[in-house]
């Protein structure tokens, strides 16, 4: 039993943290949010480092590492709110790697791994269709519970942008026949859900970090507001939610790599807890910042907005709790 990142995984984490701290600081994020544009130079650099293909097999042009390593990167990307389509690309690649035919894998994985093709991925269901997308996605993967999963090339797709509250990522709806994915669709859905959970844990961790910095600094009644238990206990709860979500996240990522039979339950647990955690932690961040937290000028709202979108993307907490009930046979399936 070793429930910790390996030295190599820690190194990946540190590299990502340092690069994104230098290249995706608050000013960059703000500029990207205002212009609603991806940072092409950063994306090129990240692609050259092999991030989008980190979990893709070497024979498909990836680095051949696992979902754990991808989650390490996504956590950092989420924490930095990096204006690059890492989740859409890596997510589309995950879905094709698990759910695609050999021909689809040949066709798309090397390009997605290299960042030369861009992707979009999401789910369609009772509540409509929501994909996280690169700005001009070449390939869109729709994981549809009712009609199976399909892959649609841009030329065949009717893509409707979904201008959301989160200006740091493109979200779209898509229609079009496309071609069906034929592989392990459950694993495709589950791994993408875990990827979204990973980014969400990063968002929550960052919200806590910003809040701590603020409440140590901000003084009222002649003391830092972080010395009031009403504030400090809220911060402790933010840590609790973040760490719980992180525990179940890495359990799910590990299961995908090492013990796939555990993945369905682990993935739904990870996605449900991450969705609940990231929403409550980012909401708490706004509250703990007081009035300033409600202003456009403070940066916490970008986190809150991403949290809301991520909570819905690939199924909300309610949907995953319903699935868990069925998987646990607490409730009849269906």
């Amino acid at each position, binding site marked *: 039993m070793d429930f910790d990142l390996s030295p190599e995984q820690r190194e990946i984490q540190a590299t990502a943290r340092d690069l994104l701290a230098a290249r995706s600081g608050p000013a960059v994020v703000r500029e990207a949010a205002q212009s609603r544009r991806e940072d092409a130079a950063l994306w090129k650099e990240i692609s050259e480092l092999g991030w989008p293909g980190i979990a893709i097999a070497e024979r498909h042009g990836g680095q051949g590492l696992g979902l754990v390593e991808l989650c390490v990167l996504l956590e950092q990307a989420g924490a930095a709110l990096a204006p690059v389509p890492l989740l859409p690309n890596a997510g589309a690649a995950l879905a094709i790697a698990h759910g695609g035919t050999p021909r689809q894998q040949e066709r798309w994985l090397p390009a997605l791994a290299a960042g030369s093709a861009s992707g979009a991925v999401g789910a369609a269901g009772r509540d409509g269709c929501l994909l996280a997308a690169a700005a001009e996605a070449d390939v869109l993967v729709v994981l549809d519970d009712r009609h199976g999963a399909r892959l649609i090339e841009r030329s065949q797709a009717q893509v409707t942008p979904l201008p959301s509250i989160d200006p740091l990522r493109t979200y779209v709806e898509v229609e079009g026949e496309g071609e069906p994915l034929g592989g392990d669709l459950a694993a495709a859905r589950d791994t993408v859900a875990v990827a979204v959970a990973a980014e969400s844990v990063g968002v929550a961790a960052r919200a806590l970090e910003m809040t701590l910095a603020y409440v140590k600094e901000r003084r009222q009644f002649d003391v830092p507001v972080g010395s009031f238990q009403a504030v400090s206990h809220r911060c402790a709860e933010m840590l609790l939610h973040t760490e*719980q979500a992180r525990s179940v996240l890495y359990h799910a990522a590990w299961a995908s790599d090492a013990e796939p039979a555990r993945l369905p339950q682990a993935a739904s647990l990870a996605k449900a807890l991450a969705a609940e955690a990231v929403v409550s932690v980012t909401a708490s961040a706004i509250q703990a910042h007081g009035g300033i937290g409600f202003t456009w000028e403070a940066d916490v709202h970008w986190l809150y907005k991403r949290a809301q979108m991520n909570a819905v993307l690939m199924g909300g907490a309610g949907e995953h709790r319903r699935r868990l009930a069925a998987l646990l046979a607490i409730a009849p399936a269906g």
Partner: protein
Amino acid sequence: MDLTFTESERAFREELAAWLAANPPGPEPVGQEEAHFGWRREWQRRLYEGGWAAVHWPAQYGGRGASVVESAIFFEELGRAGAPLPANVLGLLLAGPTIMLWGSEEQKERYLAPILSGQEIWCQGFSEPDAGSDLAAVKTRAVAEADGWRISGQKVWTSIAQHAKWCMLLARTDAQAAKHRGLTYFLLDMEQEGVTVRPLRQITGESEFNELFLDGAFVASENVLGGEGNGWKVALTTLMNERAGLAFFLQVRMRQLLEALIEQARRRERLDDPLLVDRLVGLHMRCEALRLTAYRGLTAIEKYGQPGPEGSLTKWMWSQTNQELCQLAVEVLGAQALREGAPWAYELLRSRGNTIEGGTTEILKNIVAERVLGLPKAR
């Protein structure tokens, strides 16, 4: 990262499970306190004879030198088998490791073996009426004599004191020194004049705890542990140990309660109620999050010698989840669960103590805020 158990961890679990299957603890005497403690004494005797009494102790003291993961496995399997905690759990988990770290060779020689065998039961005399969460405020006074100390004061929440031969006692030896500095850690013989134990009846009706009155009780000089004035540091060793292995016993017990509740709801055909199902799923999620977070904590202790940020969270998570689980059981089963003597009624009432004993949730949040998050001292 590898969340499978190693071959030796699996072998450890299998050997233990086989032993437990061959040595079932027998039915729990319900509602009879003396018989219940007798059951736990007998259980410790059998654990001791089987070589399982203190797996986490080093082999030189009669343990198995088990790793922290194996120790967690031990408590998980104990819980799974429906076995009680051994009678001398405070000696095994708290007094023993504290004596190993701070004790002289003579002290180790004298005290460790009877802790292991259960021959001498230990209790913990830390809390006082005016020193609960603020433990360093203890007022119990120790006055020096030629060959020892005379101790007077009052302790409270002293579990198992009525059965104990020895007490880990924290008392003030220097009234002039700063609060944390004037304390000394004593090993107090409970069988003497000047020691009075009075049971405290708790909301369940039973008496796990006692008040302990000390009126000139004597402790010989050689029964100071860790040196005069070092009591706070020594006590912290005890408190750190308090939170380790037990978490896994409690976590497995909670999982069993949840499974039992799901089964009862199923038999009553209540699982067609989506609101109930969602709450059961929510409890499942929190049990899983707790189990996995506790495992993360084990790895941190193993690799870095101390728990990471997640380590301060598990007791908090367990206590709240257990309370909610018991409350849901009452909602599912109604008045039946509230009948006097009903198992759920006991669990419900007992669970109120969970967020208080071993550090209130409020104090745990303060600890997280100050030590993990680096926030200024709370007001």
